[in-house]
């Protein structure tokens, strides 16, 4: 009897032990606070770290460390500067562009950055069978259509016919039409070069990217945890890293990161949890920084809905919203009222472009609404996606519409993104809806064409208001044909004036990036694209 019982115990213990042993592997990695290395908060990047497949902010922040783009931007006025790999980007006709690279740039594996490092990468990014998120960035390059497959057909080509290598450091890009601000777009990560090593093993590359930037990756990126990149000694750019390296720490919860940065376990954090928006400035003092975020939040109008077809109705709604009150009460001034369709950080922004149309004026709003014969007895649906913190400010918007216009509202905020977006694509919005946009490149064009041009109507683009105005499209086209960037911007501003007159959406707020850091680091700056300038951070 005794023996049998002992056997039973042994079996049970062995069973548990074998299971534990099976899962016991993997030691804990060491902390990222070695000498001269600082740590920074990031969320989980959505995809492996390849420039052509990274369109979200977390992966982009990592790629900022590992890559230097073709062109950079002036920190004050957002104009193009040739402090990147490109020596010049020039065109006679705005259609065929010649890109000349500087000599001597190398990838972290020692291979040179050549014209082919770009042309091959761009074709790879564009090819639909590679399923890269940034594919559409190349759609205005000649030959893009041939690289797109469909449900039934494979792509007929694998290389963009518009790209031609002239010599080792020169290549030409032929666009499908004139695009005066093409050089501006080249600062986006999707246009970064790829070394030959990428094509040999794209999976391995995505875990440990080989770039041409101020930092290099020495180990694989561990999903859920992050990795450390170290200073690249042979960096050719003007701004080499001021620290020995950066440890990217992956978090899922902002509050956890904020506790960590207060406790000294984390050095830099951009984007703060809601509870800290108002208090961080005082709590961190000179270890706090902020800068306008290159984004905009608008209220889009379903122009396909009979109730919102009259521009006077849309203007009336715009004038019934007190943006400042919401920014202060709901966002504790971490949003600023928008007075233009473009973000303040871009080339071509005009502070009061929208003027009286975007300011609270209940009397005028009611007059316009009466004039348009709007039926106030029917409540207005207000749409937004669930679980993303939009409830409180949309409620405030609804309350203001009710108080100022005498129209009741119904919140339609119970759809997750996966349901909300297809509904938006299918003209399913039965009332004004939340609309958000984050900049890709610092031109006013990036806030107009992708959101309001006829060519961007879903599913091809993000014109969720289904705005279709030939005069607006013509003004944009004129800008694309303009002699230089300044002339183009002037034309784009004319297009914005048409928007303000037609009001297919109304600008509401601009975001604010807030950063805090530990006393181990200094010189923490936010650039005009909303990233931390990683190479400038100094570790004490």
């Amino acid at each position, binding site marked *: *009897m005794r023996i049998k019982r002992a056997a039973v115990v042994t*079996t*049970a213990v062995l069973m*548990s032990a074998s299971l534990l042993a099976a899962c016991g592997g993997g030691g804990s990695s060491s*902390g990222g606070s070695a000498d001269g290395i600082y740590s920074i908060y990031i969320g989980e990047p959505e995809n492996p770290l390849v420039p052509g497949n990274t369109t979200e902010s977390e992966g982009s922040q990592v790629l900022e460390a590992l890559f230097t783009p073709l062109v950079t931007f002036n920190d004050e006025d957002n104009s193009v500067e040739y402090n990147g790999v490109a020596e010049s980007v020039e065109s006679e006709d705005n259609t065929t562009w010649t890109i000349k690279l500087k000599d001597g740039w190398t990838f972290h594996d020692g291979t040179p950055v050549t014209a082919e490092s770009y042309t091959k990468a761009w074709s790879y990014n564009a090819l*639909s069978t590679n399923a890269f998120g940034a594919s*559409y960035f190349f*759609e205005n390059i000649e030959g893009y259509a041939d690289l797109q497959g469909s449900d039934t057909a494979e792509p007929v080509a694998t290389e963009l016919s518009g790209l031609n290598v002239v010599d080792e450091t020169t290549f030409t890009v032929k666009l499908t039409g004139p695009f005066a601000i093409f050089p501006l777009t080249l600062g986006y990560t999707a246009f970064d070069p790829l070394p030959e090593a990428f094509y040999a093993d794209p999976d391995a590359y995505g875990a440990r990217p080989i770039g041409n930037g101020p930092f290099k990756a020495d180990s694989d990126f561990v999903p859920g945890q992050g990795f450390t990149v170290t200073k690249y000694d042979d960096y050719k750019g003007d701004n080499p890293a001021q620290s020995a390296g950066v440890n990217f720490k992956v978090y*899922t919860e902002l509050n956890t990161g904020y*506790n960590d940065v207060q406790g000294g376990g984390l050095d830099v954090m951009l984007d703060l949890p809601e509870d800290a928006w108002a208090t961080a400035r005082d709590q961190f003092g000179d270890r706090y920084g902020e800068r306008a975020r290159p984004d905009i939040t608008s209220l889009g109008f379903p122009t396909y809905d009979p109730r919102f077809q009259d521009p006077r109705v849309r203007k009336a709604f715009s004038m019934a919203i007190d943006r400042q009150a919401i920014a202060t009460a709901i966002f504790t001034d971490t949003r600023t009222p928008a007075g233009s369709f473009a973000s303040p950080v871009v080339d071509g922004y005009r502070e009061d472009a929208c003027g009286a149309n975007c300011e609270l004026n209940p009397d005028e709003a009611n007059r316009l609404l009466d004039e348009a014969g709007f039926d106030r007895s029917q409540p207005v649906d207000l749409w937004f996606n669930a679980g993303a913190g939009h409830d409180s400010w949309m409620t405030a918007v609804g309350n203001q519409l009710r108080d100022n216009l005498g129209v009741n509202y119904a919140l339609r905020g119970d759809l997750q993104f996966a349901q909300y977006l297809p509904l938006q694509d299918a003209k399913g919005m039965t009332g004004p809806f939340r609309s958000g946009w984050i900049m890709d490149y610092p031109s006013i064009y990036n806030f107009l064409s992708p959101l309001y041009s006829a060519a961007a109507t879903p599913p091809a683009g993000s014109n969720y208001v289904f705005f279709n105005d030939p005069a607006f499209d013509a003004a944009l086209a004129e800008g694309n044909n303009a002699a230089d960037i300044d002339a183009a911007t002037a034309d784009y501003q004319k297009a914005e004036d048409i928007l303000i007159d037609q009001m297919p959406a109304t600008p509401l707020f601009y975001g604010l990036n807030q950063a805090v850091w530990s006393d181990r680091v200094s010189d923490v700056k936010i650039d005009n694209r909303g990233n931390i300038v990683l190479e400038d951070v100094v570790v004490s």
Partner: protein
Amino acid sequence: MGRYITRRLLLTIPVLIGSSFLIFAMVYALPGDPIRALAGDRPLAPGVVAQLRDEFNLDDNLFVQYFKYIGGFFQGDFGTDFSGRPVLDTIERALPVTVRLTIVAVVIETIMGIAAGVLAALKRGSFFDNLVLISTTLLVSVPVFVLGFIAQFTLGLKLGLFPISGINDGWSSYLLPGLVLASLSMAYVARLTRTSVAESMAADYIRTAKSKGISNRRIIFRHALRNSLIPVVTFIGADVGGLLGGAIVTETVFNLPGLGRAIYDGLARQEGAVVVGIVTLFVFFYIFFNLVVDVLYAVLDPRIRYE
């Protein structure tokens, strides 16, 4: 005994197939288009969408999708998430974290729970008994994520007793998350033990033992506790499954890269392969620990025999 265990283990196969189908069906039934959500405010190029839908069989019906999935499963292919990372890699990386967290939590809930329960039962009505009563009520009524942030803020940040987050400090990284994860079960264990021990202490055989002059310590550990532990052991065994569920919240709060966080991310992105793979693993654990509990019964209670 051996035959019994074999039979139980064989029974897990149909259970796993059934449960994986149910989970798969539930993820499939989630409304919305995951590939569309992947793109966000800015749509993907149509060619890219077609490629992704094809890669993840999203245009097939539920049964075809499931058979493609389970077919790969039996060949050791657990599928990939939307970014192309094999689910098996995710499990391999995250499992040790969750296992360590669970071990710490089980040890804490067992030791502290039983100790508190026994002491409270022996000194009923005392200050300590009331303290256990009040503190367990508190633990049961506060949601885990609130408790997590309170513990992190006070014990981690303000007092500096524990690491605030992450897994870079070895086993001590797991102490605070383990304590938070164990708190709810610890309260139950304490109350269960208290009731059970109190009942045993009033039983005839304990009175007999006392009258025979056996030492107090021997009465409590040899006679009372051993009989009282059967419901407690059942609870702890079954609770391992519950702890895995609680790990979803705890791992997020304390930034532990474990299976709970992987499930959370997988659900948010409607990645069938990730959710089904990990939850099926959880189901297996649950069945396994129930088996361990059943086997342990035989040790605790000589009247129970498996043939």
